[in-house]
């Protein structure tokens, strides 16, 4: 089955979407190189000073999260632009604010020496011995800008979908849902539109939690308020950080709903299970963050239990609708392996295994052992690298190919295989080291641990080769695609 030309989005939206996704890809590439550096350091192959390791780790983590979100935001804008009139004014403004926020983070880490990690618990930002107050503030201001950029995007999406369908209840298909699919079927939004609106609502809550965390911190830095309650601060930080990264996959899922049909020839309809799943996500996605606080004995026990239930609960609708739905679409469809289709399948695989890794670690008993081991980065690297980002790059590659009219060589799809195989090997060593209780966020690994990192390096190199190859292929298509998008 070959890809059909999809409905084109408004040219101005398409160009902005390309700016979002291309920026996301470039940052991903650069941050990937930093990841390689850290793995070389863990393997004892290259020695970074602890100070530089933590700067690099912080920049890598925050840069990757930001790049991945940005790419998915851009991709989804292009998808939504096919059926909705998105304001390019606010899409562009959101990008500028977001991008400049990322600049703060780069400077705070590389020049200012901030190395507290992409999520630094309260007190640490202002108590670092290797960085000063301005570096901590710059980091937090950078987060604030990124959050505001994301918020503008969320509100733009919500405003547009609500206006188009005449109310939030219609966007979320509540009548259809409550009537068991018997009423309201005539004017249902597409699955990508519902997914985008769910993300926009939850994203708003997450950003507000982030603001509730950041504003008192600024007050504290200015000496205006006393110290924050550390437990409240931790709850707010993870409600913001965990929810934001979790949402990323739902944005990226919106890309799959729009792209997979082009490769299978089967439509991804808004069915009753789809509306149920996405509405459940709306309810449940705010709960799993509690699993980050299992070690905090002062946190009330019911919240720990809620964390476990939420983590299990949110995994189910995603699995049933997107992964099962995606695989059944592919089954016997005459699916042809090309860069976008390989990456989409890798994405379904990564979402499943990343999610399973998360489920295990969100089980209270297991978390007592696995907490803060490399199992944690293993699960979210799977979920991102082979999940959300595989979807995003599949869509970017597809869009550039479609716009530029470039045909795919047989050898071309090797880049996607390299990405998938290198990525899978790399995360496998992360999982194995996590299972062996190797701690996360350690600059220096003792010789007993180094072997895992040494085993991962060849895979990371294969992965980087795949990414580099994809970059060259996409660069070759970019100029023509840009012209065509604006035409």
């Amino acid at each position, binding site marked *: 089955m070959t890809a059909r030309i999809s409905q084109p989005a408004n040219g101005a939206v398409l160009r902005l979407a390309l700016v979002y996704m291309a920026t996301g890809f470039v940052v991903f590439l650069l941050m990937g190189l930093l990841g390689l550096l850290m793995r070389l350091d863990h393997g004892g192959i290259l020695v970074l000073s602890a100070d530089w390791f933590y700067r690099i780790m912080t920049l890598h983590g925050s840069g990757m999260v930001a790049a991945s979100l940005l790419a998915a935001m851009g991709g989804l804008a292009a998808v939504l632009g096919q059926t909705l009139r998105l304001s390019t004014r606010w899409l562009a403004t959101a990008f*500028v604010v977001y991008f*400049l926020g990322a600049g703060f983070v780069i400077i705070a880490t590389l020049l200012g020496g901030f190395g507290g990690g992409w999520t630094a618990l309260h007190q640490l930002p202002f108590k670092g011995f290797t960085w000063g107050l301005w570096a901590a503030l710059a980091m937090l201001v950078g987060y604030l800008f990124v959050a505001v950029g994301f918020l503008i995007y969320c509100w733009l999406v919500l405003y547009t979908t609500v206006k188009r369908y005449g109310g939030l209840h219609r966007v979320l298909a509540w009548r259809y849902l409550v009537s068991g699919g018997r009423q309201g079927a005539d004017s249902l939004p597409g699955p990508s539109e519902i997914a985008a609106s769910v993300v926009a609502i939850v994203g708003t809550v997450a950003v507000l939690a982030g603001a509730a965390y950041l504003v008192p911190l600024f007050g504290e830095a200015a000496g205006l308020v006393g110290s924050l309650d550390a437990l409240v601060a931790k709850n707010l930080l993870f409600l913001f950080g965990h929810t934001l990264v979790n949402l990323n996959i739902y944005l990226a899922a919106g890309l799959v709903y729009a792209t997979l049909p082009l490769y299978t020839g089967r439509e991804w309809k808004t069915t009753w299970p789809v509306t149920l799943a996405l509405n459940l996500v709306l309810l449940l996605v705010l709960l799993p963050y509690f699993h980050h606080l299992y070690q905090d004995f002062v946190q009330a026990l019911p919240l720990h239990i809620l964390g476990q239930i939420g983590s299990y609960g949110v995994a189910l609708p995603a699995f049933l609708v997107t992964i099962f739905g995606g695989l059944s679409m592919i089954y016997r469809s005459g699916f042809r392996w090309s860069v976008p289709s390989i990456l989409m399948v890798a994405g379904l695989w990564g979402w499943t295994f990343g999610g399973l890794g998360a489920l295990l670690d969100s089980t209270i008993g297991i978390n007592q052992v696995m907490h803060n081991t490399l199992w944690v980065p293993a699960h979210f690297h799977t979920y991102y690298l082979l999940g959300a980002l595989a979807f995003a790059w599949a869509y970017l590659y597809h869009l550039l190919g479609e716009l530029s009219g470039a045909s795919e060589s047989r050898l071309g799809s090797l880049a996607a295989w390299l990405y998938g195989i290198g990525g899978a090997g790399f995360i496998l060593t992360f999982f194995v080291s996590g299972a062996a209780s190797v701690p996360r966020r350690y600059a220096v690994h003792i010789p007993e641990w180094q072997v895992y990192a040494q085993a991962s390096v060849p895979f990371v190199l294969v992965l980087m080769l795949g990414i580099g190859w994809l970059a060259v292929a996409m660069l070759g298509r970019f100029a023509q695609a840009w012209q065509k998008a604006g035409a």
Partner: protein
Amino acid sequence: MDRWGIGIALLAGVWLYTAGWARARQRADGSLATRKRLLAYVTATAVIAIALMSAIDTFQSRLFSIHMLQHMLLVYLAAPLLLLSRPATFWRQGLPAGLRTWPTGVREWRAAEVLSHLARPAVALGLSTVILWLWHIPTAYDLALENDVVHALEHLTFFGAFLLYWWPLIGSPSRLTTNAARTVYLAGGGAQSGFLGGIITFSPRVLYTHYLNAPRTGGLSALADQQLAGVVMWFPGVLIYGLAAALTMTGE
């Protein structure tokens, strides 16, 4: 030019602009001579006056952070406001009838063409970046602080460079015709000036010897003052680019 000179020049400018604006309005050219433009001009003049004639100017030679604030007011507020007010049009209208042909003469020696080349987005972004960074090289900055003529030149080139930077965005006609182009332009401008602000903030040593030797004011050490200067350039500067995005993007 001393403060008196600046004051007189600013007042003359306001007088000329207002006269031209009133004349255009009398000819019922209301779409050109809008109240917004008049307000932009008066505000730009007030900002220049605050930057160059108030205590800010008195303390700029003692505190780098105040000097930075002065530059920020000039390039991020006064320059775009001045562009919005379309000064050349109204100054010309404000001149006595016999002198109004003067700009035609200017056009004859192709200044307008030169300007229009300079206001191409890539050139304007490149030039404003180069001028901003060049003046922050310690030797150049120290020289400006020690010598009034060089200092005036520094202010003039900063101001001119940022008039150029804002031109493609808000000048007439706008050179950046799509939101995608405006996005890249603003992101580029914000990134380069933010980066310079970051370098100044996190420099481990005092960059400009002038401030090492200046009398200490406000209990700030020279290094703390420099960090503050960097932050003044960096944090609000980036905010301005973000705001500019919200204000200059159009519905496409």
